[in-house]
């Protein structure tokens, strides 16, 4: 038993080694870039850290990370079975748009209104994502390409419908086009811990629940086992009795449904309408966050927090005379370093384990042999 514990501890250490390695590498690269462009790197890091840990920063980061986390989960569920859902971006926008439209049309008590909006959003996003799933299993179209095209098509669909006279209104004062404002009953609750820091958006609770559900389904259910099996080896999954095609569509649908949650904090906690300033591009952040977190629910959380931290501090860097675009460099380098580091560590771990198993077995064999010889004598 002691042996297993040791192997597990090693695994944990190795698991942590990768991201740490990557972040360090990213810091080094960033420092070099800053130096090369004539800026002082250490002051920049210091600014980032001190600002990032202020209490209002913390609230901001939590709120931002909530959205990123959901996007990360949506992407990760695809990654877990080798599906690259690049289309979370289009999916969450479609979902949030129709959620906003439906929510604006009806006024119900909160306990009905909010779930209604969320469900509509999830269903629409899932349906949009399912198109890519069906194209993949039915016509063999790579989901990567299909979802990229669907992102652009989603943009067209939304901009067609988001017109005054169709499903939206024009505010001629602001030149902004928006769907009917959600009734107050659709506003999600917020929590205020420190008035100066602003409220924490209540949707963080849903995000945490989604993370727990993600973990539970994958690690503890038969369905999750089947899903992971497909991700690890499609052929073995097929032989073990998983209907791989069905699983592809199912997981695209689940991924899409999760994507349907991504726009909810912005809709239910912030804007209460879908307007032409609704945030776009979060799906792509989700990819980065999922990669950082290695598709693990806790890892994704850390990735989302890191990303939000970098976003937050980028403003302050700009404030302090740095070009905030440096954060883009940091983010790019971190992701690239992380994926490389994970691979290196994974391979090292696997090789080490094989070696260890070999050694232990050899030791066991020689013990047996000497025992046998002893018995013979």
């Amino acid at each position: 038993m002691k042996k297993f514990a040791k192997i597990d501890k090693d695994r944990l250490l190795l698991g942590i080694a990768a991201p740490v390695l990557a972040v360090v590498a990213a810091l080094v690269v960033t420092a070099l870039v800053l130096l090369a462009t004539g800026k002082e790197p250490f002051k920049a890091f210091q600014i980032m850290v001190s600002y990032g840990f202020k209490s209002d920063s913390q609230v901001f980061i939590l709120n931002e990370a909530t959205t990123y986390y959901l996007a990360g989960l949506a992407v990760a569920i695809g990654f877990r079975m080798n599906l690259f859902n690049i289309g979370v971006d289009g999916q969450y926008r479609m979902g949030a748009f129709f959620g906003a439209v439906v929510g604006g049309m009806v006024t119900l008590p909160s306990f009905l209104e909010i779930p209604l909006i969320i469900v509509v959003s999830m269903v629409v996003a899932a349906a949009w994502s399912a198109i890519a799933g069906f194209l993949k299993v039915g016509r063999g179209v790579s989901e990567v390409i299909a979802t990229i095209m669907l992102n652009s098509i989603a943009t067209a669909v939304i901009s067609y419908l988001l017109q005054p006279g169709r499903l939206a209104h024009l505010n001629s004062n602001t030149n902004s086009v928006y769907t009917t404002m959600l009734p107050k009953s659709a506003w999600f609750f917020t929590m205020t811990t420190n008035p100066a820091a602003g409220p924490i958006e209540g949707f963080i609770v849903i995000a945490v629940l989604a993370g727990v559900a993600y973990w539970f389904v994958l690690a503890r259910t038969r369905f999750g086992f089947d899903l992971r099996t497909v991700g690890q080896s499609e052929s073995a999954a097929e032989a073990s009795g998983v209907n791989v095609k069905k699983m592809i569509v199912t997981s695209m649908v689940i991924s899409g449904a999760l994507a349907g949650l991504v726009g909810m904090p912005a809709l239910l906690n912030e804007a209460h309408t879908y307007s032409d300033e609704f945030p776009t591009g979060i799906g792509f952040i989700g990819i980065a966050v999922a990669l950082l977190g290695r598709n693990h629910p806790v890892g994704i959380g850390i990735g989302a927090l890191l990303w939000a931290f970098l976003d937050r501090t980028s403003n302050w860097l700009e404030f302090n005379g740095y070009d905030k675009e440096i954060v883009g460099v940091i983010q790019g380098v971190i992701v690239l370093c992380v994926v490389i580091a994970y691979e290196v560590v994974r391979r090292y771990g696997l090789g080490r384990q094989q070696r260890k198993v070999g050694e232990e077995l050899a030791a066991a064999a020689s013990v047996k042999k000497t025992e046998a010889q002893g018995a013979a004598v």
Partner: protein
Amino acid sequence: MELKGITKRFPGVVANHDIDITVRRGIVHALVGENGAGKSTLMKILYGMQKPDEGTIAIDGEQVSFSNPGDAIVRGIGMVHQHFMLADNLTVLENVVLGSEKLHGIGAKARARITEISDAYGLGVRPDVLVEDLGVADRQRVEILKVLYRGARTLILDEPTAVLVPQEVDALFDNLRELKAEGLTVIFISHKLGEVLSVADEITVIRRGTTVGTADPKSITTKQLAELMVGSELPSPETRESTVTDVPMLQVEGLRLTAPDQDGVERTVLDDIALTIHKGEVLGIAGVEGNGQAELVEAIMGMRAPDAGVITLDGQDISRTPTRKRREDGIGYIPEDRHRHGLLLEAPLWENRILGHVTEQPNSKGALLDPAAARRDTERIVAEYDVRTPGIDVTAASLSGGNQQKLIVGREMSHHPKLLIAAHPTRGVDVGAQAQIWDQIRAARREGLAVLLISADLDELIGLSDCLRVMFRGRLVADADPATITPEELGSAMTGASSGHLEHASAAGAVTGTAVSDTASEKAGGED
């Protein structure tokens, strides 16, 4: 050519340990040893594909060091690998000239040269066909041509006969003798000792990564050679006491399967297959790989949807049931390729124990997994089936092939299947594990298990089966009684040279195919 003190370590294994071999020019030198003994590794070292950790190689007295196969090729060494090294989507010509374009370019001159060599050795290779359109024997010839094209004087053939039927083996040996006559050196690897004795001039035996001796093919018998290889007496798969009942467990009728090939053209891969396996019966299927055995297994497993036909398991029509349900209903499956179909290599052993039986006890309760119970049961399997591992949390990839296979067998047997589909159950498994697996199959059969056995090892097939069928181009073309049939006779049917019921003819070499019965399997069952 002299290899001295070669040592090669891989994570977890010492593949070669202080090996010494001397090969003289112009002879056929055979290298024998059981699976995993380190033969291929040694040859890859000689061919520059692997670097030895220790040791030296000398050619004609001159010490050499190869950093890649290119260096070896320059030295006149060529190798035909155990697994085909061909690009399917390239033409034969492209496959042959690849890497040696300097010799004759990649155009007309190369084509002429290929035709010339092909004619000289009677290989019959067509340069402009895509490799994917070739059968195994043709591919083998392309491999040999590749080596000859490079002007190799030393030819390494790593288990070239594994996928060939006896007649094709004879043709190959004729080619080898011709090469030898031309003054070429051939290093020949095989487990099939009869073949080795018939073609080799010298034999080196490797056991557990080291040379244990050399033998003279003229004076040694196969039995002695085998014992040298294994270090003890050879186990045998013989199983003669019959446990066959007359209760059918699996019945397949009129099974037809078509599948689109690369061009999208539908081809018939299974044609009108009919067979019955009774409780307690082992039905062996012989056939050259690629004649539909894999598809038959997949159709029975539900991984492919047949176009026509009825499959009945224990009286239940399962023709339309999904794979998972079939497994729950009692089909156990030892797949042909354990890495592709049997394991999750990067998952721990206990998760591999769940694989394929996730809906069954003790792996899950309702929709939820029961990891604790699964782990407990994995411990049990590890102990009962002698899986050598330090624990159940190591990944499947870190186990050796034999131990991986024992885990799979243990897993499948733990669910008390009614029907076991065993495709090459002992392929790539060492002798000890092989015997264990055979024992387990026999034991289960005694308790009424029906087994569909597919194997390329004809001795295994003959020894274990109660009844034999031969598959050729998607059809069951012949049947035979394992008690009397010889591997040669079976081999002849596998090439399609004979069909119907195969009777053993005592006249040496003569194989007559005389069909006698219409329901061959019943007949065979009754005979036992």
